[in-house]
């Protein structure tokens, strides 16, 4: 393995969270991000199928994760615990925020048809959403967006990994659905 690849392997092994390419590039200032990226690819293929862990692109960064097939065994032995599942209310709220960000509390309430204040507070507490800016309207409402932790718990590389709305079986009709077919 290339020395840079080994350095990245060490850093990724030591980290308990995904590391971004920029962070990894700061390990060795004499090489550029392009070199880091190709070293990461080398590392990823080195961990191809022959290892219990693999290098995964997640949350705009890179992280070593165990392979899925070992989940049950590892959990049964209590070497690691699965995170608690999110409630449907939390997932609904996250879905709305992920697609509408930056979005205010009122809009979330309206789409869900119920008050979402408590759920949103909890999501902020868990670091899955955060206030990103203030809106223009009355009282300049706080507008929320998703955080890298959101991507991390869903195993997403970035927001582009979310399904496109057009791909969903329920295509959302705009308020003026005059010549809508199907």
């Amino acid at each position, binding site marked *: 393995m290339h020395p840079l690849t080994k350095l990245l392997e060490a850093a990724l092994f030591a980290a308990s969270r995904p590391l971004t390419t920029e962070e990894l590039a700061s390990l060795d200032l004499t090489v550029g991000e392009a070199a880091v990226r190709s070293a990461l690819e080398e590392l990823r293929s080195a961990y191809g199928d022959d290892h219990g862990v693999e290098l995964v692109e997640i949350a705009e960064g890179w992280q070593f994760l*165990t392979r899925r097939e070992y*989940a049950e065994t590892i959990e049964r032995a209590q070497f690691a615990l699965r995170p608690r599942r999110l409630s449907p209310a939390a997932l609904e709220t996250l879905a709305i925020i*992920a697609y509408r960000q930056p979005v205010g509390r009122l809009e979330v309430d309206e789409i869900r048809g119920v008050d979402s204040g408590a759920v949103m507070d909890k999501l902020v507490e868990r670091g899955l959403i955060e206030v990103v800016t203030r809106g223009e309207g009355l009282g300049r409402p706080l507008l929320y967006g998703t955080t890298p932790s959101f991507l991390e718990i869903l*195993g997403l590389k970035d927001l582009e990994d979310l399904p496109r709305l057009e791909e*969903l079986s329920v295509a959302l009709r705009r308020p003026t659905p005059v010549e809508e077919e199907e």
Partner: protein
Amino acid sequence: MNQGGPGGGFVVELEKFSGPLDLLLHLIREDEVDITDLPIAKIADQFLSVISELGLNQAADYLEMAARLLRIKAQMLLPRRLGDDEWEDPRAELVRRLLEYQQIRELVDWLGRAADVRAERFGRGYEAPPPDAPPAPLQIDLNDLLSAAERVIALIPEPMLHRVVPRPLDVEGATERIMKLLGEREQFGWIDIVGKQATIVDVLSVFIALLELAKRSTVTLSQPEPFGPMVIKRAPPHEAA
């Protein structure tokens, strides 16, 4: 999320629904009706019977939807002329919201699956930093120990006896001095009144005198900036007692 077999009536629990839209979608699916051509009268009746049967845990949200459904139902009954282009389907807004919400539910399924898959892979867990390593065993030489002991003993001061003498505060004297100074000047500083080599008793006397005078509105005290010098000022005459 769906429960209650076909023909099983509405075996539903309100807690299972994340809101009135969710309940509506459930009813629509049970009835297998076209969401874009909602049989509003039927759906509204079912909605009402479900929420009345199940108590009103989240009353406001469900009741608001019930009211909305009834209004739409009433609007649908209003006569309209055939071929009236101006006619706007009173259900349109509700249908739009239902579709929007249905889309969100679909995303919820997707997100839930993604989270489940992610939860099957473990990263390196966070581990608390290890406790500090125990200090290396001491290596002492008797001579070092003795000379250290000598150094420590040399540092012990001669024992000193303190005699405590009562030194009563002289608030009256301080008040007199302040009033005299006030007679000469409009304002002055702390240093002007206590001097640079004041004893603790002087400081306390002056301080108490100043507080007393301030209370009587004879002087005003101010400190223009944090930790800055205190400014003592003659109070405006009309405020003086």
